[in-house]
């Protein structure tokens, strides 16, 4: 027994001598790892885009220009395609370090500028979709777990399985057909109806920008446009979160400390929300991190079907025209999202579970 040791030595961050704070060190280590990861990703993205078969000049120049060797050569020179690959990569990283992602071959605009207009549209859609998925998915998962092996559980199992096995593009088309074309309850495409003008950009989220400027009708229309694509994008994640939350909750409820809480006369509702969910949260958090990845992938299809002017559409257009700087820009953005989400998940693990903070 630790009679001789003072308890203070056992509590992180509270002892008098203050050894290096474990949690800060944990953050710093993760951060350094992130930088290397980022560099690695630029290399992989660069190689993949450049080794892909296809000639950017052929894809971007008109029929006439391709037959003119001078035009092709000037195109190659303009985008640095005449240099060796390592040279090209070096130039790319150097420019990247200065916040320059190059110029897109299609629009002849800086890629950063294009990303700046497309990212907020995707962010608005993706964040709403994840919010819906988390609230609904975690809620249904808890419900399925506490009604284990009863009718509710069986019904939810079918629902979540349907959610994860339905192809997104098909869902999007069906949703459009029913709610827009047949019932006309919701608008079909775009972010706003033509009679509304875009709200002045502050966050780039139309709903929030319109609200900030007191344009209620615009905000309402923007919100209505969000509903279908956000739900379609959320469905897969709802299914995923329902299944994983159910499993995580069931793993926790059989623990002694839950029975101990029950033995103390704490209400069932409180036990589920405060005790069970707390312990299940790390597993749920992992899946929420995955949900971000799914939304980034799903956005390509959903944005194209709903004519949503976001990163997904931009990625699709750039890929089909072999617009290398744009493709690299999108890859980098997606990579940054993954990295940031993973970092956030790691940090939150530490916040949720005190045991991780010390080890």
């Amino acid at each position, binding site marked *: *027994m630790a*009679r001789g040791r*003072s*308890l203070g030595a056992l509590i992180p961050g509270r002892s008098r001598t203050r050894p290096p704070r474990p949690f800060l060190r944990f953050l710093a280590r993760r951060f350094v790892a992130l930088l290397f990861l980022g560099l690695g990703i630029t290399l992989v993205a660069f190689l993949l885009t450049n080794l892909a078969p296809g000639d950017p000049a052929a894809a971007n120049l008109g029929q006439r220009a391709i037959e003119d060797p001078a035009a092709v050569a000037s195109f190659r020179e303009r985008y640095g395609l005449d240099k060796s690959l390592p040279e090209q990569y070096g130039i790319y990283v150097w420019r990247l370090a200065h916040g320059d992602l190059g110029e897109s071959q299609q629009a002849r605009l800086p890629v950063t500028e294009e990303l700046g207009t497309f990212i907020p549209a995707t962010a608005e859609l993706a964040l709403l979709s994840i919010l819906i998925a988390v609230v609904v998915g975690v809620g249904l998962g808890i419900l399925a777990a506490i009604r284990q092996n009863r009718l509710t559980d069986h019904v939810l199992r079918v629902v979540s399985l349907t959610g994860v096995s339905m192809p997104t593009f098909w869902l999007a088309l069906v949703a459009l057909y029913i709610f827009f074309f047949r019932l006309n309850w919701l608008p079909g495409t775009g972010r706003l109806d033509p009679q509304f003008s875009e709200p002045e950009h502050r966050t780039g989220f139309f709903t929030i920008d319109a609200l900030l400027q007191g344009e209620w009708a615009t905000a309402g229309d923007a919100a209505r446009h969000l509903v279908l694509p956000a739900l379609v994008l959320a469905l897969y994640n709802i299914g995923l979160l329902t299944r994983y939350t159910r499993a995580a909750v069931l793993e926790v409820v059989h623990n002694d400390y839950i*029975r101990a809480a*029950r033995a*103390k006369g704490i209400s069932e509702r409180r036990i589920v929300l405060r005790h069970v969910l707390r*312990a299940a949260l790390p597993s749920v958090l992992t899946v929420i991190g995955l949900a971000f990845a799914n939304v980034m992938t799903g956005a390509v299809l959903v944005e194209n079907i709903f004519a949503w002017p976001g990163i997904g559409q931009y990625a699709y257009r750039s890929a089909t025209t072999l617009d290398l700087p744009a493709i690299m820009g999108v890859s980098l953005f997606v990579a940054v999202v993954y990295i940031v989400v993973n970092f956030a998940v790691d940090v939150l693990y530490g916040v949720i579970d*005190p*045991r991780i903070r010390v080890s």
Partner: protein
Amino acid sequence: MSLLEVEELRVRIRGERGEVTIVDGVDYTVEEGQVFGVAGESGSGKTISVLALLQLLPRGASTSGRAIYGGRDLLRLSGRALRRVRGRELAMVFQDPLTSLHPMLTIGRQLSEHVRVHEGASKRAALARAAELLAEVRIPDPERALHAFPHQFSGGMRQRVAIAGALATRPKLLIADEPTTALDVTVQAGILRLLDRLRRESGLAVILITHDLGVMSSIADHVSIFYAGRIVESGPTKELLSTPRHPYTRALLDALPHPVDDGRADLLAIPGLPPSPRSRPAGCAFHPRCAYAIDASRVQAPPLVTVGAARLLACHVDPFASPS
């Protein structure tokens, strides 16, 4: 009137291979301030029989019989009435202190939450009480411990924290399921002294489950020996342990190593294994392992009958009856 009267308690659990009877008709009473010991091998139904009192049995279990506490039958309480009894009147300490505290909630939270729920105490008042309790169970620097998490304590300290949590609402009856089994001997002694002190100072009654007869003899007033879901013998601790009447009790005592004996006497292991609840033998469940079994033992289960002052025995043979 006794604090708790358990009559004809039966617990059946529905499993994949049909229903099995875990506790098969148990009667006992617990008085105020009494330490009531329950002993027996693993699988004899000790734990299940007390979990039934607080309706903490796993899903698929069904209970019959009565457990009268304060004029009410614990087995038939539900909803708010059940929650009021749980934690407030009857508290429970579980066997493994490493798993019975929530790993992600602070000690302070785990010691105060139910106090606030039951007594409507303010957060500050409940935490102050929690700190007092931690001091009472001899946790050093209680104020600081309130902000700590379970993994920062050793097993023995965690068990004392769990006991502090159980006692926070000042219950009248504490059910302690093997509270010292997972701990080393010095820690064990500290916890037993603590329980003994609380019993003397505040009239706390304790149902103490243990398979360790040494622990039993040091603290229990009364002992009931469980075998295969039934009580086979019960009586005042000293008397029962010095003059056991049931062959099973006797065998349990013979299986104990003697601390001053230098190993010359062989330890007598009980032949055979305790029966699984799925296939309990007919008649006296102990008869296949018993050297004294007679024909009647194989046919009919012996009833638990009074054999002298405060002593009960369930044996057809009673081979160790004192000549009188």
